[in-house]
C-alpha cells in the first residue's frame, strides 16, 4: 500500500513497517519544512525506514528536519532506519553521530516483513 504524504515523501506500508521514500533530491532549507511535516507518529510504524535513494544532497538544515523523525520515533518507541544512503552522506551522518539514531538497513532486510 502506498500513498503520497506530500510532494517530498511517498509512503509505503506493510505490516509493522513504514518506508518513507524521500522524493526530493535536495534535503535542505528549502525542502525541510515539507519533510518535517511528515515526521509525525501517524506517518510512522514500529519499524520506520527513510529511503534516500533519490537524495543527492543533504545539509545541516536537512539533518535538522530528519531529526524530527528521530524525535517522533523515540517518543513512540519506534525504530528508525536509513536505506540507500550514499557513501558521502554515510560519512556526514557518522560525523554528527546521526547513524546512532538512524542506523543503515538494506532493502533485502525488509523482505521478511513483506
Amino acid at each position: 500500500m502506498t500513498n503520497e504524504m506530500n510532494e517530498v515523501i511517498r509512503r509505503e506500508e506493510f505490516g509493522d513497517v513504514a518506508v518513507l521514500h524521500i522524493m526530493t533530491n535536495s534535503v535542505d532549507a528549502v525542502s525541510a519544512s515539507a519533510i518535517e511535516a511528515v515526521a509525525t507518529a501517524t506517518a510512522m510504524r514500529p519499524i520506520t525506514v527513510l529511503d534516500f535513494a533519490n537524495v543527492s544532497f543533504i545539509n545541516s538544515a536537512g539533518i535538522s528536519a530528519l531529526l524530527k523523525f528521530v524525535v517522533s520515533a523515540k517518543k513512540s518507541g519506534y525504530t528508525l532506519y536509513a536505506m540507500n544512503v550514499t557513501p558521502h552522506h554515510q560519512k556526514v551522518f557518522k560525523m554528527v553521530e546521526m547513524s546512532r539514531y538512524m542506523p543503515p538497513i538494506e532493502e533485502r532486510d525488509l523482505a521478511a516483513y513483506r
Partner: protein
Amino acid sequence: MQQVLVNIPSVPIFERVVRASADEVGRALGFSAERVEDLKLAVSEAVNNAIDHGNKRHPGKLVEVVFALHSDKLEVHVTDEGGGVETVDFSRKVVEDQNLDAGMHRGFGMYLISALVDDCEVNSSQSGTTLTLRLYRRSQDHDE
C-alpha cells in the same frame, strides 16, 4: 588567478545556485567526486549561515560568494551584509539525547565546514562577515 563571482539575495532557494556553482568549480579544478561533495556541503553551510544569521533572511541584502582559483588551492569567500559577529564556534557538534529532548536540532553547520575543508577563517566587522574556506589542490587532482 581566476575568479567566479556569484551574488544572491538572502532567500534560501538561491543557496542552490551557489551550490551548483561550487559543483562546477570543483569539477573544473579536477577535485575527486568526494571532494566536490565536501565542497558543496561546506559552501552550502556557509551560504545558509550568511542568509540566516548574517543577513537575517532580509531579501534586500546580498550574499556575495567569490570562488578564487589559485594554482595551489581553491578559496571560497562568503560575505554577508550583517552587523558582524564576535566569535564563531567551529567545535564538534553531534546529535545527543539531551539536545533532542530539548528540541535543539540545529548548529551542525560550522562544525561540518571545519571538518570538510582544509582550513577556514572568519573576518568580521560591523559592515559584514566574510567566511573563507580553503581546499588545497592535491597531486591526484587534474584540470578538466
